[in-house]
């Protein structure tokens, strides 16, 4: 049922809102939902709208600001003739439980200044960091902000 609603909404956004598209979309969504009946990862409950609202209001502005900063950083590094790099692989601990919030954490880390997620295992993330400054406070520098925000949104 939840798969049905999700695919119907996506169909309507992709094709536009009209009567014929609605009928075809319902048929296609029934087909998709019957194939993927056993996947119950997406759950719709009353909290979903609250979560979506929190996601858009709290997470997205921080994410966009961080991404613009990351790009200015990368641009300064690339355009600098001396190419200032100090790369290294570091290991970072995370407290997030659910899979969706980990996916968003990894994506946010990849798109924020100078870091790229390599692998996630148990409760550690392995990260390629373009400019290793300290080894002590690495959690504070890389992931703490997004972890706090995502914890508020998803858990």
């Amino acid at each position: 049922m939840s798969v049905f609603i999700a695919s119907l909404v996506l169909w309507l956004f992709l094709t536009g809102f009209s009567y014929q598209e609605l009928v075809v979309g319902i048929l296609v969504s029934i087909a998709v939902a019957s194939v993927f009946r056993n996947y119950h990862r997406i759950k719709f409950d009353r909290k979903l709208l609250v979560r979506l609202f929190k996601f858009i209001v709290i997470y997205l502005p921080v994410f966009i600001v961080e991404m613009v900063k990351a790009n200015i950083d990368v641009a300064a590094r690339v355009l600098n003739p001396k190419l200032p790099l100090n790369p290294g692989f570091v290991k970072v601990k995370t407290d997030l439980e659910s899979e969706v919030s980990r996916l968003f954490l990894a994506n946010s880390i990849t798109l924020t200044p100078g870091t790229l997620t390599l692998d996630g295992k148990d409760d550690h993330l392995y990260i390629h960091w373009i400019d290793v400054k300290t080894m002590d406070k690495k959690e504070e520098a890389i992931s703490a902000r997004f972890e706090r925000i995502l914890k508020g949104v998803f858990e």
Partner: protein
Amino acid sequence: MMWNEVLGGILMIIGGFFYFLGGLGMIRMPDVYNRLQAGTKATTLGTFSTVLGVGIYYPPFLIKALIIIAFVALTNPVGSSTLARASYFAGVKPAPITKVDEFEGGEEK
């Protein structure tokens, strides 16, 4: 010129500039991990800016442009992180200036 055409054009040119920076980073960076950093970040923001500029320039495209933005923002970091992990396991050596390595070969497959 309407205001939305000016704004859309400016956004598109900013996007094109970030695409150019992505290409330049591809050439200048010393190893595959740094190249992925530059490439992924620059092209993701470039796509945001360009596609949003198209949506603002011509408003009937706006909904689909937002879908394309969400899609690129979800898949591009996942793809590049998969590629970085694969090249680590395939034995691509990082550049000699790399200081720390806590990954240490990952787990044995």
